[in-house]
């Protein structure tokens, strides 16, 4: 870790030095027009994006290293997690099952990975009450991961005996056949809570509609922006885009996820700051600040 840190410092300072000299050079040679095929060692028109990336990079790496050292990084508990707990709670009160749909993509989609982390947590809550947790799955590779997540959840709640393997069901690898089968489960087994968290496509509509018509509490979440409208209107609570990843980072506490999240948060704060300062200056008629962001 220390070596990495040192090399990081060296790298960043080297970058800074080159940059400063380049900026100086660029100012001297500003009127010079270059053709596109004129090779040079640093594209001086791109210095602003270079600095921005350098800042974001160092922020992310710094936060990751902090998280790895075990320092606590604060992330707010997003309301979506409470909504999930509430839905599960309702199901336990009613003694009915919970349906957990982890999206339709394979494990190489980070949304599915995030969904598995949340699944493990839901399993932990459910394990204390004797209600079934049904997980229908479209991708064969997701089945073992989901089984493991649920089993771990039950184990950490001290109820490994309550784990029912048959409730983690491989349905069909064809999109609409899968959607039809899950709709069937909703209508037949009438779960009290439907959790739709992961990567969804055109089937989102069919699932959310059927779920709403059975009167179940529905909590959905996906980073596929184009499917969010359907979830927002047909579900009781929706985790929007990034919130899905935040929920999983919050629950798993994995350093690299937490660190990246904090790093991007810092970048967001800087962007917001830039927008505020820039807008004020622009309104007053000062233009140079805006020009810092021009990339050719």
């Amino acid at each position, binding site marked *: 870790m220390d070596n990495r840190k040192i090399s990081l410092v060296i790298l960043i300072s080297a970058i800074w030095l080159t940059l400063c000299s380049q900026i100086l050079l660029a100012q001297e040679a500003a009127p010079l027009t270059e053709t*596109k095929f004129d090779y040079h060692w640093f594209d001086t028109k791109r210095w602003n994006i270079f600095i921005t990336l350098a800042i974001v990079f160092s922020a992310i790496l710094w936060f990751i290293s902090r998280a790895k050292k075990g320092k606590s990084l604060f992330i707010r508990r997003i309301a979506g997690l409470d909504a999930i707990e509430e839905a599960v709670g309702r199901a336990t009160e009613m003694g009915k099952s919970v349906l957990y749909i982890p999206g339709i993509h394979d494990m190489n989609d980070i949304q599915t990975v995030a969904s598995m982390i949340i699944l493990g947590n839901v399993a932990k809550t459910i394990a204390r009450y004797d209600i079934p947790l049904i997980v229908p799955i479209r991708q064969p590779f997701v089945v073992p991961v989901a089984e493991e997540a649920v089993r771990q959840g039950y184990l950490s709640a001290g109820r490994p005996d309550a784990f029912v393997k048959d409730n983690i069901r491989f349905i069909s690898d064809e999109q609409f056949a899968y959607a039809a089968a899950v709709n069937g489960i909703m209508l037949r087994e009438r779960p009290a809570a439907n959790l739709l968290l992961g990567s969804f496509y055109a089937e989102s509509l069919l699932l959310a509609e059927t779920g709403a018509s059975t009167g179940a509490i529905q909590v959905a979440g996906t980073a596929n*922006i*184009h499917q969010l409208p359907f979830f927002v209107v047909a579900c009781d609570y929706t985790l929007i885009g990034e919130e899905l990843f935040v929920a999983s980072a919050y629950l798993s506490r994995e350093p690299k996820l937490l660190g990246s999240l904090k790093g991007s948060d810092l970048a967001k704060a800087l962007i917001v700051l830039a927008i505020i300062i820039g807008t004020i200056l622009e309104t007053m008629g000062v233009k140079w600040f805006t020009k810092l962001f021009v*990339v*050719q």
Partner: protein
Amino acid sequence: MDFWQKLLALDRRIIFVFVALALVIPLFFTAPPGFLKKIDISSPVKSLYDYVEKLPPGSKVMIAFDYDPPTTPELQPMAISFLKHCFLKDLDVIMIGLWPQGPVQAQFAMEMDILTDEKIKAKNLQYGVDYVNLGFQAGNEFVILRMGSDIAAAFPVDYFGTRTRELPLMKDVKNFDNIRLVYNISAGYPGTYEWVIFAGDRFGVKIAGGNTAVQYPHVSPYLQTGQLVGLLGGMQGAAAYEKVSGYFGKATKYMFSQAVSHAMVVFFIILGNLAYFITRGRKT
């Protein structure tokens, strides 16, 4: 169970029938002339049209066909009206596809609509000189990046198996520097997003888009930033381009059905909510 509750529990197949009727019946009628006059030409459509209008004859325009049969009703009219506009302006057209079915769509458009058109027949278009179809290449954004340095390396052969370097049109086209506009007709990934990021902002070529309505809102922020020259969205965008370029095509024809079906959906949303609030009010 009273009326409203029955209404709430309506079998969805009944709704299916209503939708089908709302779509099909208007197809049998020609829309009233006043209706077509009211098709709105929004500013992104107009700016694309104006940009093409201003290009000098002989300019090279690239059209990327990044879609497949499902989205044909929306996107094919965009391709046809744009192609017509280009040929009537004597622009040279390079067609490519990052979706395997894309170049076939280009072929369909040429065979069925462009080459049979009277005005365009008079132009006596020649394959290889006035237009080329470079076919499909796998690799998504990396194909775009490769084209930034050498188009013929990214697309070694055309749709018909001829080597790209041997096509007369491609003789003086090296990379994006020689292309005045890339018009990307897209139904998803890779699509306008990738073209803006990896061609427009990277190599400075002008990008315009024709998108499915699903994608349109996601791409629209690029308009305000000027990263897109123009953008057509869905059937409405297609009909607007047909209107602005003075050509009565499929999109205009479908617009009547489209309007009625929208009204039907809005009606259902309002009806559903009405039933929901009335029954909910009673319970509590």
